[in-house]
């Protein structure tokens, strides 16, 4: 396997670990007020909650190649993407808690996070973020900047019309656009082979005369290399790419999902191949990092995430009347 610098490996590890710990805390936070009887609307974090535990390589593997000026759009399952793109963790957590201090002053929620500082956004409509990223890529081209735009979607979204229209436009105009398809093999309860007529979406690149990449088995290292090539090509004006990564959905579609459609062994078997451990062990094997070093890193990450939760929890709720503000600027 081609080498990856320690800096990059540690960066990827940190983002993945941070996302994981952030979501593990979220799993607990989300259940507050929802016990003994689950009620999706109750507790400090109400509404739908889509967690990405297991899918971290998809986000960290490409965002390690991105800069602040690059755009990222994400779908309804956005935390790992947001964290990898460097979204302000405090403001993001506060938003998920519906606080006045949140990214959207409590108006957006977990599916609608907007951080213009790092050009990140996400939304609740499947595949709808793709045209947005195409527009950002068009802007970069107009500005003659080497910025790229990355749209994250799930494998289920690859069958929505917006997928096709976005890729045709991006290829036609040769835009610095990349779509990362996080194939966690499920669209809620529908398995990929019941939603997609081809086994892997990289073949769909042929429909646009662009490059298609496939990353198997949630491999963070392969995702790193493939993404580097796609991002470099985009920056050089060589046009769009499709990257599909086989990734893992450790949890249900959303928290509270009974998952009756899914074989009980699946999640545990996926967890056994935890991608975060793979990066950590690789660092050890290569002698790039010591236990002590990584433990220290973990402590820092935990601190940062805990601080974000603390900020969110201690932030004030918006005033009811604020609901009438911000429809227009």
């Amino acid at each position, binding site marked *: 396997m081609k080498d990856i610098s320690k800096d990059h490996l540690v960066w990827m590890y940190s983002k993945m670990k941070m996302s994981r710990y952030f979501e593990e805390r979220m799993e607990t936070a989300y259940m507050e007020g929802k016990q003994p009887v689950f009620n999706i609307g109750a507790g400090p974090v*109400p509404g739908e909650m889509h967690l990405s535990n297991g899918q971290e390589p998809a986000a960290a593997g490409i965002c390690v190649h991105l800069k602040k000026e690059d755009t990222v759009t994400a779908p309804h399952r956005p935390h790992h993407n947001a964290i990898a793109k460097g979204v302000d963790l405090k403001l993001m957590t506060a938003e998920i808690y519906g*606080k006045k201090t949140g990214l959207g002053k409590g108006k957006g929620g977990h599916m609608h996070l907007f951080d213009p500082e790092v050009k990140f956004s996400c939304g609740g409509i499947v595949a709808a973020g793709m045209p947005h990223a195409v527009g950002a890529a068009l802007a970069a081209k107009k500005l003659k900047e080497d910025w790229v735009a990355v749209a994250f979607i799930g494998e289920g979204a690859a069958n929505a019309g917006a997928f096709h229209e976005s890729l045709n436009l991006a290829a036609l105009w040769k835009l610095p656009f990349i779509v990362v398809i996080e194939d966690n093999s499920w669209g809620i309860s529908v398995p990929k082979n019941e939603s997609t007529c081809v086994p892997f979406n990289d073949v769909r690149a042929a429909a646009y005369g662009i490059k298609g990449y496939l990353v198997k088995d949630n491999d963070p290292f392969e995702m790193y290399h493939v993404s580097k090539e796609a991002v470099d090509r985009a920056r050089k004006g060589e046009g769009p790419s499709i990257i599909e990564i086989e990734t893992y959905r450790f949890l249900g579609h959303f928290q509270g999902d009974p998952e009756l*459609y899914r074989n009980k062994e699946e999640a545990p078997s996926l967890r056994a191949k935890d991608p975060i451990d793979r990066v950590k062990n690789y660092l050890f094997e290569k002698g790039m990092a010591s236990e002590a070093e990584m433990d220290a890193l973990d402590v820092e990450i935990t601190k940062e995430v805990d601080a974000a939760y603390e900020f969110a929890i201690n932030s004030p709720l918006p005033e009811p009347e604020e609901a009438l503000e911000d429809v227009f600027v």
Partner: protein
Amino acid sequence: METIKVQKLTGSKAMSLAIEQAMNKDDKVFVMGEDVGKYGGIFGSTTGLMDKFGPERVMDTPISETGFIGAAVGAAAEGFRPIVELMFVDFHGVVMDQIYNHIAKITYMSGGNVKMPIVIATAVGGGYSDAAQHSQTLYGSFGHLPGLKVVAPTFPHDLKGMMAAAIQDDNPVVFMFHKTLQGLGWMDQIPSSLGPVPEEEYIVPLNKAKVIKEGTDITIIGAQMMTVEAMHAATELEKEGISAEVIDLLSIKPIDKETIFKSVEKTHRLLIVDEDYLSYGYTAEIAALVSSEAFYHLEAPIGRLAIPDVPIPYSPVLEKYVIPDSKNIVAKAKEILNS
């Protein structure tokens, strides 16, 4: 006891029972939608149907609303009676062309030569912090366009009877069911989401509103959760000696003018409550009908309560502020009575 229990059903069970009975009777009826199979519909609208009828008649689809809802057109033209589920009405924007330019207009454009017996079932409503893209009702967005019958049943009895009527109808019907009224175990479980439902088949007309509480001082019209809130408000008002008549709208398009005019003729006062956006919603349409066709029944300004033309915010404190509730209704009713 036992027998009564059996007859008490949740909204979702009532709805899926109607579909089940129709599928038993007519093998041309089938269901298509996202997660309608093993999952039984995200909001329980097709619970158990996959086991009973198999994947050929209860078809999980890709996330391709234009594809599969548009496919209902071709299947209907071939004599089938598709029930397609649009998981959340909020997603209508990716498939509205198929719904309003084709499903709704083909019968007319063909001079009545092509029937479109299609049911578009879709979940509506907020109140559980699902935010701006998963909490709308959009009654008005569908009520505005010709060629669609649009219904929004509230109680389990009507969910079953109107679904049965929708499937039997040879015209396209947009069947809006409210998430909170489905009686799902993982949502806020309110008493109204459970109710007596006859086992045998029956029809509730698609174009009739119902007076669900008689009164003499003011008419309050709601649909779905706003009907529930209106009933709570009526109880409160009763305590203060105000007799409110409550109408459950049920049909968004057409609006049952007769039932409404008759009530306003009696009460002379009207308050309309909507979980949809204020502008161009049913508070507008009903007010217009009354002020143009039953003007002289009115003795006071018409009251309108609805979402104040803002997207639905995520934070519970904000969302509660924009969705009308019984308190708002009580206050507004008094305001009208004192005007």
